[in-house]
């Protein structure tokens, strides 16, 4: 496992930025092609009044229309009349982008430290509940209005970060001190988070007025405010301020990884834990630390979901944590790449709603697409084989300058 991860990381870190971008774009295109074929073929099994007749089959779905809706619907159909930049669909897309930046960063930070944190979802659940509860309780003593906004929002974010961080620290500690495989524990902790959060809710925080399993709504002044003039309509669940915060965090993480001693140690632990230990890093503390940071980022994602989108905590928390894995992997786990990747997945998410209203194609298509994207990103070799015929991808040649020991073969040697 260790060598495996090491090799993978080595390969990912190794690939030049250009190659990484090329592979990500190629993966996206490949996923779209496969998805398009799937849509077209499945159109033969759907029932419709009219369709394209080919070879005795009636094909109901037009893949072009589907992808048109998916990508252009998500930004409000810019090619059609009276398009405004600040439209509802784009707001939805950007709201999703904001949240996915955090869950993507959460996965990336752990991954760069050599840890597979599949548990962002659970950390997000805990963070979001903590945010909602903290804000609700604090709003009783904090004055409303502007002061309330200024106090409650940072407080809510802090609560989310702390709760998410603590919940992320659990699998970290289990790995560091009990050698428990984090892939398994984080997956299990996702299930546990859902159950524990729902139980806590029922036990103490349930909104007595509501038939749903949810907390009371947070006061309006605790919702992330809109930027006047510049921002999108206030009744939509999106705030430019939150997006800006996400971008700042993204740049901050990128800076942390490349410029600070902690970031250097984290990256070293990720590619070669033995080398990190050699350089004076306490491996166990690094594992716990990286998982805590990762969990905190997931928790902040949860905070924003409550403070910007949902306005209260409900038991059915959307699958932002799982999508974050896809976001990060597509971005090659690079913090800056996550911005673009999160926007793409934001498009997919909001586009899936356009698909479901504008076409008869099942919106689950989007789930398949993101799975396919990950699958293709996972096999750069596939594109190298195809691309190798046209471009020379191999960027590192062993340097033989003396008769020393031969440089080991590729990273993939057995």
């Amino acid at each position, binding site marked *: 496992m260790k060598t495996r991860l090491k090799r993978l990381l080595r390969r990912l870190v190794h690939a030049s930025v250009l190659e990484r971008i090329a592979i990500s774009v190629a993966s996206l295109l490949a996923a779209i092609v496969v998805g398009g074929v799937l849509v077209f073929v499945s159109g033969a099994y759907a029932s419709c009044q009219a369709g394209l007749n080919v070879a005795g089959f009636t094909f109901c779905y037009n893949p072009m229309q589907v992808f048109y809706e998916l990508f252009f619907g998500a930004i409000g159909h810019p090619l059609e009349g009276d398009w405004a930049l600040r439209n509802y669909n784009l707001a939805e897309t950007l709201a999703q982008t904001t949240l996915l930046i955090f869950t993507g960063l959460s996965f990336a930070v752990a991954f760069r430290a050599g840890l597979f944190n599949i548990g962002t979802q659970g950390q997000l659940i805990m963070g979001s509940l903590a945010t909602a509860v903290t804000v609700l309780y604090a709003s009783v003593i904090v004055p409303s209005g502007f002061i309330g906004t200024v106090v409650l929002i940072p407080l809510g974010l802090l609560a989310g970060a702390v709760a998410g961080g603590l919940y992320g620290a659990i699998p970290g500690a289990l790995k560091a001190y009990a050698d428990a495989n984090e892939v398994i524990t984080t997956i299990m902790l996702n299930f546990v988070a859902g159950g524990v959060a729902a139980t806590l809710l029922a036990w103490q925080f349930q909104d007595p007025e509501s038939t749903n399993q949810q907390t009371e709504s947070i006061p309006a002044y605790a919702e992330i405010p809109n930027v006047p003039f510049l921002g999108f309509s206030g009744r939509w669940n999106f705030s430019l301020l939150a997006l800006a915060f996400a971008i700042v965090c993204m740049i901050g993480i990128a800076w942390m990884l490349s410029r600070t001693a902690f970031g250097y140690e984290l990256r070293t632990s990720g590619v070669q834990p033995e080398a990190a230990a050699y350089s004076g*890093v306490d491996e166990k503390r690094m594992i716990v630390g990286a998982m805590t940071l990762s969990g905190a980022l997931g928790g902040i994602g949860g905070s924003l979901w409550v403070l910007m989108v949902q306005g209260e905590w409900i038991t059915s928390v959307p699958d932002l944590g799982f999508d974050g894995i896809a976001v990060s992997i597509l971005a090659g786990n690079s913090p800056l790449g996550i911005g673009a990747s999160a926007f793409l997945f934001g498009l997919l998410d909001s586009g899936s709603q356009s698909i479901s209203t504008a076409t008869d194609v099942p919106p689950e298509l989007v789930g398949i697409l993101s799975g396919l994207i990950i699958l293709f990103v996972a096999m750069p070799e596939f594109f190298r084989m195809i691309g190798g015929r046209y471009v020379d991808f191999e960027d590192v040649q062993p340097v033989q300058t003396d008769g020393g020991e031969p440089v080991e073969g590729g990273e993939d040697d057995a």
Partner: protein
Amino acid sequence: MSEPGPGQTDDAGVGGTASASDLAVHLDGITKRFPGVIANDDVDLRVERGTVHALLGENGAGKTTLMNVLYGLYEPNEGDVVVDGTTRSFSSPRDAIDAGVGMIHQHFMLVDTMTVAENIALGNEPRKWFGLAVDRERVTREIRDLCDRYGFDVDPDAKVADCSVGVQQRVEILKALYRGADVLILDEPTAVLTPQEVEGLYDVLEELTDQGKTIIFITHKLGEATHAADAITVLRDGESVSTVDPNTTTRSDLAEHMVGREVLLEAETEANDAGETVLSVADLTVEDSRGVEAVSGIDLEVRAGEVLGIAGVDGNGQAELVEAITGLRQPEAGTISMAGAEITEWSRRDRIDAGMSYIPEDRHTRGLVMPFDLVENGVLGSQRAETFAQSNQIDWGAVREHSEDIIETYDVRPPNADADAEAFSGGNQQKFIVGREFERDPELVVATHPTRGVDIGSTEFIHERLLELRREGVAIVLISSNLDEVRSLSDRLAVIYEGSFMDVTDPESLTEETLGLLMAGEDPDDADEASTTAEPVSEFGSERRGER
């Protein structure tokens, strides 16, 4: 056995005197290319039936590659493989095995979790119950038969992981014999053995040739080749330089063939006054990762300007001892002090800050972060030092300057700080590590196998630098399995065996033979009484050739 010929012959030499039908193996004009490297360049090799044929060459000369071609792991770009007079084209080891070729690799090809019997039968399991199940009884029986025939003492039901290296080697040989191999290739079989185990191996080889098997024996140690082989083929830079008769060839001739120039076989040390005690270890007990006691109650002391050498066969607790000293492993008992302060509980970080440099055994996993470039590797270990990081922010400009200095001073080639560590050859990687650790301004240097896998030129340079530090008053612990190295560089030499020091003495007073006995865990005083004929070390056992 062939007639002893003149010292050096042309390619037709030793092999050429025998008729073609006597050749067990004939590799004819083999060329094997890898991207950027020609590993074998038109190599000829003729091996007579029933002989031991040594394949001699430096690191990277192409020995292993050539044998991998013979074993069907690689297909040659050019040339023919002739086994038993028939030209073959092997596309996999399966074909080679079927043609009666067996290979014992440099790194054993054994599955640790399986038993000896399962390993030996792997891929050739006999079956019972209409071919459904493996016939384990038959495997066990056949292995017992083989053991009886060749005088091996191997338990077929033991787990390979529990076997000693020597036994594992016999398992590899049995594996080849079980498959009916007539030609056995052994790739550097002595690298992991004690001198005494090496003797045992020679006996096995003799037994095998007596029974008509043919042996090809890869080594880069001159003494072994002259001692055990009936013919020696020297490879250099992928080409076959010559085939010679060991009886009529001197070691220095062979060395010249191998390296292509005259070689100095010993490094020089001069007397030096040792100063204050820098490192002292008392009654240290350390467990390995499996919880087995690897170091038992070791005491040692190193003073400023002194080199303490620790010799021993790999796996006798050196790794754990070093890890305990450098702070990578917590000892079970005992104390470690540095410059008067007890550091047993200190973290690795604190020890680095206190001036402890460490050249790790494994540069690929510890010493360098392979996917990082040399700039980033230059700060490994100093990433929180004042010089490079203020308030935890790394000053990459300063780090780059530092790394480029190391590259220049230590002649790291190519001089490109932006290339990833894994793109450098082993020798250059090692020079960079040595530079980084030496330039830390250390009080104490722990150097583990500092020249392992490094070519002669770089080795000389690293030795020079080490002695320079010693002159500057740095305390040095040198761990090496290269006996020449520890003996020539150390002021005092300790021999470690199963976690304890056998003896700590002046290296000059040790003979090759006593050293070997100590490394094998035997008390040389007892042995001395039995045999009074201790050989002078400088002869490296080459005289014993006559005893065969």
